[in-house]
């Protein structure tokens, strides 16, 4: 049984169809990279998986349970699904450490000392052990994004969602974040990433999903898809991404 199963997901924003009959199964430990042009529905897809957006039709089943619509049941399920956003969304009024311990102490009711131990642990994982007392505004974009990853990891999730997390970074800062992602993938974390980092997708993802007009247009092992795209749309997308000035 897959850890996550999406079946026939549909989603509209007003008259606009954003997700059109999307189905996808993700096994435990699988790394899925979702690519596609902006407006293809990839971010919306990701946000539906942890209930930040509601779906109009279809089912989302996580760990054998259908995704609840909201309330305490949805909160319960979200504990197992971490998400990292493009714009970091750290809490600017809390220290790095407090950003990370907030979930464990408030949601999981852990004692502060235990939560701090977790914070040290996840900060080590993103190579920022020395920044626990800093505030977000004192960090670079790459550091902030790594803290955001650590914050999500502190909840010990079974699935991690990444929404274009390197897109807002200066080019020289992308590498340090990608390195953390690769470490996570190696550790066996189940991950779904919406990304524009084609190199990363090719190297690290088990499955590449190309979205177009709200549909899963092509899906398969990244090397195969990159080497021999079956559709014109994917071929032209790969060309546009690899040689943006042509």
């Amino acid at each position, binding site marked *: 049984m897959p850890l996550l199963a999406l079946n026939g997901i549909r989603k509209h924003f007003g008259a606009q169809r954003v997700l059109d009959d999307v189905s996808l199964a993700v096994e435990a430990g699988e790394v899925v990279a979702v690519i596609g042009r902006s407006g293809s529905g990839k971010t919306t897809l990701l946000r539906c998986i942890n209930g930040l957006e509601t779906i109009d039709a279809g089912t989302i089943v996580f760990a054998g349970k259908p995704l609840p619509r909201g309330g305490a049941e949805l909160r319960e399920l*979200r504990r197992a699904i971490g998400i990292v956003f493009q714009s970091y*969304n750290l*809490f*600017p*009024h809390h220290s790095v450490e407090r950003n990370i311990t*907030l979930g464990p102490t*408030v*949601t999981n009711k852990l004692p502060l000392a235990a939560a701090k131990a977790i914070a040290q642990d996840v900060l080590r994982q993103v190579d920022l052990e020395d920044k626990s007392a800093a505030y*977000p*505004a004192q960090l670079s974009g790459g550091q902030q994004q790594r803290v955001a990853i650590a914050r999500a990891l502190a909840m010990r999730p079974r699935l991690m969602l990444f929404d274009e997390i390197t897109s807002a970074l200066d080019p020289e800062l992308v590498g340090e974040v990608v390195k953390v992602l690769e470490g996570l993938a190696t550790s066996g974390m189940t991950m779904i990433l919406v990304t524009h980092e084609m190199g990363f997708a090719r190297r690290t993802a088990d499955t590449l999903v190309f979205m177009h007009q709200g549909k899963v247009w092509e899906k398969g092992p990244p090397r195969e898809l990159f080497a021999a795209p079956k559709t014109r749309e994917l071929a032209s997308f790969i060309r546009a991404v690899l040689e943006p000035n042509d």
Partner: protein
Amino acid sequence: MSRDFEWAEFLFLLGALRWTIVLSLVAFVGGGVGGMLIALARTSTKALLRGLAAAYVGVLQGTPVLMQLFLAYYGLAVLTGVRLDPWPAVTLAFTLYAAAYLGEIWRGSIEAIPRQQWEAAAALPLSPSAQLRHVILPQAFRIAIPPTVGFLVQLIKGTSVASIIGFVELTRAGQLMVNVTFQPMIVYPLVAVLYFILCWPLSLLALRLERKIDAALGIKRHP
């Protein structure tokens, strides 16, 4: 027979200044509690709560505080037969008035927090009340400092309206002293200075508090 403006007269003004402070304080604290409820109701997901709070704010902001004062003092007596003393009447009127304005200021401060902060908190996943308490309200507090202190200063000066129904605060005391000393050019400037001494440090304190918070969080607002 007129008196000179001397120590006794000055002490009378100071005694009345105390009532200006007490009235402002009670209205600010009471209005703060009410204002917080209004701000939460205005940003609630429940339409009924939003509507009720909006109606309250609309009425209180749309009518002069003087009329609200008359209604609390004379109107209540006519409608219910219960005649409030000036003190409870002015306290009631200014508290309700402050609640409307603080509620709107704080609603604006809450709404100024980016939607992504709510989402990040919801993803953690904090409960709605924990999202407010740990993520939204502390940030809204920082934003609310300048307009809240601005309103407090307005409120302090605005309590002079209470003199109309005979409540002896600083302005009313000034009028009384002018009546017995015939020295308005001494009394009124002095009254103004006393208001200034009360209000100006508040503005300074607010600015210092803002800077202190920004410095602690490493936030640079001015290039």
